[in-house]
């Protein structure tokens, strides 16, 4: 489904701020894989997702989606394969547009946009049904501006937008990190349900080690721009947070000491 081969990226190359973000990452995801990604600050987790999505050009290596080499495709061309939810709830939606308009934009991801009406009556009914399944009372507020919603509501809508047109790969970049714990839990259970229902191939970055263990069938740990630990199946299911911390020290020779990870 997704194949990264020797992907490298260095930010600010040739300056004093030079930062190698990815140092030859190779990674293959099979159809239906739900992979969680953990690692300390600056480990390259978000960069990994951004390189797959085409936010930055690759320095080297290849990205293949569905057997197609997309390494040189721009971000909006890769969008046909990808559903994305960002950490910042503001980034995934258009604040000044209505909820239904946002969904209609997402429904047309990867399709040519013409002069047909931007949203049809049947779509509206479909959107109301889908919003009702979020259980946030949004089904009665189809024509409300998204800017009026709370961060959690916006993130739920973004998740719906990312999956309304079934993506080949779902990229979740710490999508619950900016939410309060209760809302985060809700969005996370929603994520789980959507991924299960549509059997979506998913790559989820998280700071929360418990979530990383609890969700998905595979876990990868990143450190200094590369994958240092990759575990799946029964072995992954049996992991504990203590295991992860120990594993990190073993492989990296340092401590995965990051307040945010330990506290969450």
């Amino acid at each position, binding site marked *: 489904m997704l194949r990264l081969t020797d992907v490298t990226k260095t930010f600010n190359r040739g300056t004093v701020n030079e930062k190698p973000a990815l140092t030859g990452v190779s990674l293959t995801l099979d159809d239906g894989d739900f992979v969680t990604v953990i690692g300390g600050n600056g480990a390259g987790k978000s960069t990994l997702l951004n390189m797959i999505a085409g936010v930055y050009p690759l320095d080297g290596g290849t990205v293949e989606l569905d057997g197609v080499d997309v390494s040189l495709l721009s971000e*909006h061309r890769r969008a046909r394969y990808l559903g994305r939810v960002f950490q910042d709830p503001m980034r995934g939606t258009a604040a000044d547009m209505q909820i239904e308009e946002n969904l209609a*934009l997402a429904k047309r991801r990867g399709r040519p946009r*013409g002069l047909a009406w931007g949203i049809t009556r049947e779509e509206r009914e479909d959107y109301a049904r889908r919003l009702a399944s979020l259980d946030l009372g949004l089904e009665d507020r189809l024509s409300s501006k998204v800017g009026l919603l709370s961060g959690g509501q916006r993130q739920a809508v973004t998740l719906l937008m990312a999956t309304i047109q079934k993506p080949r790969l779902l990229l979740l970049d710490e999508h619950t990190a900016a939410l309060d714990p209760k809302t985060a839990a809700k969005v996370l259970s929603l994520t789980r349900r959507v991924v299960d229902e549509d059997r979506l191939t998913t790559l989820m970055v998280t700071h929360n080690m418990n979530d990383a263990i609890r969700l998905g069938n595979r876990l990868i740990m990143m450190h200094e721009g590369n994958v240092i630990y990759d575990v799946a199946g029964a072995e992954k299911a049996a992991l504990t947070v203590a295991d992860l911390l120990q594993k990190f020290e073993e492989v990296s020779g340092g401590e995965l000491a990051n307040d945010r990870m330990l506290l969450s």
Partner: protein
Amino acid sequence: MQLALMGALSQGILWGIMVLGVFITFRMLDIPDLTVDGSFALGGSVAAVAAVALGLDPVVGVLLGVVAGLMAGLVTGLLHALFDIPAILAGILTQIALWSVNLHVMGKSNVPLLNVDTVFTRLAALLGVTQAAATLVVGVVIAAATIVLMYWFFGTEVGSALRATGNNEDMCRALGIDVRVTKVIALAFSNGLVGLSGALICQSQKYADVGMGTGAIVIGLAAIVIGEVLGRFAPGRLISFGSRLTAVVMGSIVYFIIRAVVLQMGLDANDMKLLSAVIVALALAVPVVLERQQRRRAYRRGTPAMGDAGARGRDGRDGAPARQEKGGER
């Protein structure tokens, strides 16, 4: 006086079409597009040459004005989209280039439309009304048609993508929208309307001048902010798209009426641009000042012990901690 007001009314409507164009870039894309000064004069120059030198039908002249404006917008859009030149600078470059282009189009700095048909004289003869009345009719019909066209276009898939571009480019790219394309379309559409307005103004005033577009963008912005202030007092607060567009044309009319009145009262015509700039600057500055004052008052209410001095010391920093938090989250 009545005659002056009548003239101001029809002038306001014809310029209102340009204001609708400016609305697309300024309010929907958040780009103050400076191409406008050049493309307005370009529309006028092309319409004048079409009538005088080429002897074309006045309707064709107007259509050529639209096409010329569209091309000007296209140039700005491509400079911005293909070469990442900041939108304001791209607009300035096109505007400056158009000054020379317009002189070449006309062959001199102004072209009078003597003894040629215009859309207004044509209609006046057809309906048997005065030319002033015909101007009003043409203006109202074309402005209304433009509003309907915009209402339709911005409801389509492409139009929605365009509105989304002005809102959140990150989201657009994630949803497969090429924001370079949507911006080019918006700039072309906008300047097409500006060219249309320029051509109509040229035919109504019966001359084209290389300087006729100077300050057009400021008139556009002034009309938009006046229209929005008027909209705030209207029932229902004019939120729907159609009424926002109508309010903007109303803003243009009000602008030209104010202008007629102050000129009648003895203001030097050369001071009009100064007045326009002051109107826009005030309209942009007043909400900011009001909000700042409100925040200061709220702070004083919240900390009575600190008194006035404390409030002044803290002034303006309220937003800073929040911003820092957000940045630290990465």
